[in-house]
């Protein structure tokens, strides 16, 4: 009923390779785009921007980066938080050394720093596999956070040890720093996330994406069909860390406004990992669904019981939140190991075949 695909025939491979071979998908995305670009900015208040919309976008982007490495290329990473940190500190140094630099350029460049560090810590993946590789990313995690604390140059030797985002303008509008408005920051993040997502989709559906998936599914066979394992794995580390680094720069510059080293510690890595798992490994869409769930969950837990006249303390909210996320992960792995993205795929399939049951 909603998704009749009968009658939509492809007459060329080009048409079959379009971003949305099914017309209804394009319509649905159009509706979401209108919501994101027009409706939300007109209706949202400061709290909604800062507590929901902006974090959802930034966490989605970080999860997308991780998903490329873990979901597409099959290399488990437990160090996402630290790589976000590299992006954030690199952006901070770029902005303080070259105050005239355009913020878009600074953020785009900062991704290359995290990408380079990502490749260095990805090198062991050529020899170490599976769980053993997790140790390499954990080494990166703990070493980098330690470095953020000890290397004063990174935070300009501030007495507080924290980095503070200055006011930064883009085309006359303040987008970062204490003076920036939530709407401006939201648009900035939204546009960045849209562009990077489009690039990521294109990479994952082409030759490089197939190489990654081949390495993930069976690395020996991938090598024997002529895929250079080293190159495939290192590009995955590069692209993944680049995106994660950008997410880290946005995280500090467009949302938190300030950061200490321990912000990038292991809980952040895990939060991003959960988003990727709950959303669905090996899917682009899943990152958004997972981020919505993980960001919205504490808000729901604190507001819903209140609506029923049962106010609960903020500590209890936090504990319940952690507990429910744990239970959700287990539930998802049992019911649908491919996460929310697969749920949507199943529902969509049902709509396409409707009213026939199979």
């Amino acid at each position, binding site marked *: 009923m909603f998704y009749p695909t009968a009658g939509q025939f492809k007459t060329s491979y080009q048409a079959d390779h379009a971003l949305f071979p099914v017309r209804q998908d394009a319509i649905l995305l159009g509706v979401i785009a209108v919501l994101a670009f027009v409706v939300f900015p007109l209706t949202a208040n400061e709290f909604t921007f800062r507590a929901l919309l902006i974090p959802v976008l930034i966490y989605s982007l970080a999860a997308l980066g991780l998903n490329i490495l873990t979901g597409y290329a099959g290399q488990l990473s437990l160090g996402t938080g630290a790589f976000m940190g590299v992006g954030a500190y690199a952006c901070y140094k770029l902005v303080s050394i070259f105050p005239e630099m355009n913020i878009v350029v600074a953020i785009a460049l900062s991704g290359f720093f995290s990408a380079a560090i990502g490749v260095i810590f990805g090198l*062991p993946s050529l020899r170490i596999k599976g769980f053993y590789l997790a140790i390499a990313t954990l080494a990166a995690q703990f070493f980098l956070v330690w470095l953020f604390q000890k290397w004063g140059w990174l935070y300009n030797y501030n007495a507080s040890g924290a980095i503070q985002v200055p006011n930064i303008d883009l085309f006359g509008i303040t987008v970062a720093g204490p003076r920036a408005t939530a709407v401006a920051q939201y648009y900035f993040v939204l546009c960045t996330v849209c562009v990077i997502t489009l690039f990521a989709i294109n990479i994952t559906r082409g030759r490089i994406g197939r190489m990654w998936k081949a390495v993930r599914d069976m690395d020996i*066979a991938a090598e024997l069909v002529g895929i250079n394992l080293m190159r495939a794995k290192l590009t995955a580390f590069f692209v993944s860390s680049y995106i994660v680094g950008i997410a880290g720069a946005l995280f500090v510059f467009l949302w938190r406004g300030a950061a200490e080293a321990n912000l990038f510690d292991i809980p952040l890595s895990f939060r991003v990992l959960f988003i990727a798992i709950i959303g669905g490994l090996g899917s682009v869409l899943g990152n958004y669904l997972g981020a919505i769930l993980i960001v919205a969950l504490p808000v729901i837990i604190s507001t819903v019981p209140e609506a029923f006249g049962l106010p609960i303390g903020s500590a209890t909210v936090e504990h319940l939140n952690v507990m*429910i*996320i744990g239970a959700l992960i287990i539930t998802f792995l049992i019911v649908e190991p491919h996460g929310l993205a697969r749920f949507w795929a199943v529902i969509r399939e049902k709509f396409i075949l409707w009213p026939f049951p199979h």
Partner: protein
Amino acid sequence: MDILNGILVKPFADMAAAPDFLLQVLWEGLVGGVLYALIALGFVLIYKSSRIFNFAQGIMVVFAALTLVGLYEKGLPAFIALPLTLVVMLVLAMTIERVVLRPLVNQPDIILFMATIGITLFLIGFGELIFGGENKVMITEQLMIPTGSFVFELFGGFVSIEQKDLTAVVGAVLLVAGLLVFLNKSKIGRAIRALGDDHQAALSVGISLSTIWVIVWFIAGVIALATGIVWGARAGVSFALEVIAFKALPVLMLGGLESVMGAIIGGLAIGILEKVFEIYWGQPLLGGNTEAWFAYMLALLVLLFRPQGLFGEKIIERV
């Protein structure tokens, strides 16, 4: 030259100049290493018997210690709280087997690993909800653990050894010895080892998978409780203990996922080396706190040369 001197000469000169202090450092490292080894041992047991990389082992330590202290604070005497905590760990093992492992049997390793991360989060939230998130004091004296310290005069200085640390080391040795006897001599122990090699074969000799999993997770829980008591006595009981769970990972990698001996030697080696590195190199040269990453970097370096760990089984690739 100053830097070279600081790296290559001065640390050793310092060691030679104050051998009593070096001994003290080694002892502290050893005690830390015993704890790492205990946690890693829990990992290895579960990995050997079910190929599950149990991320929750560290949080089980915290959970066991919290339960013990929590029950005591609720007014139960220590000699009742202790067995009751064991019961809780058994119930936990059974619940995990029923709710998590059984539905996920035959799933890829990575899925099971993620599930144990889920267990970790659940236990953190659950534990904090019931016992609160604040730091607690381990009921050391009530458990009849001596708290004084022995002081030895050596090399013109002195070395101080706390009795609870000594108890920890002795207790760990006894626990490991008992475990090895159990694994090698008892019927169930042999079954656990058989399971690690081949599920089908183990099942065909008439061993119930569920029973074994419950037993293995319970043993891991007992080890967790022992670790929790010892570590709690040193540092208090709180979720900050989680970090030692992460420490167990490099220990495992160093020792090889499947080797009990590897876990023990890896744990002791990392405990001692990270302490020595911190005191003689980390603090003077790098601003300290190198224990945060030393173990991982060491494990990473070792893995680059031996991808299966020091004691792991060699991987032969075939098609």
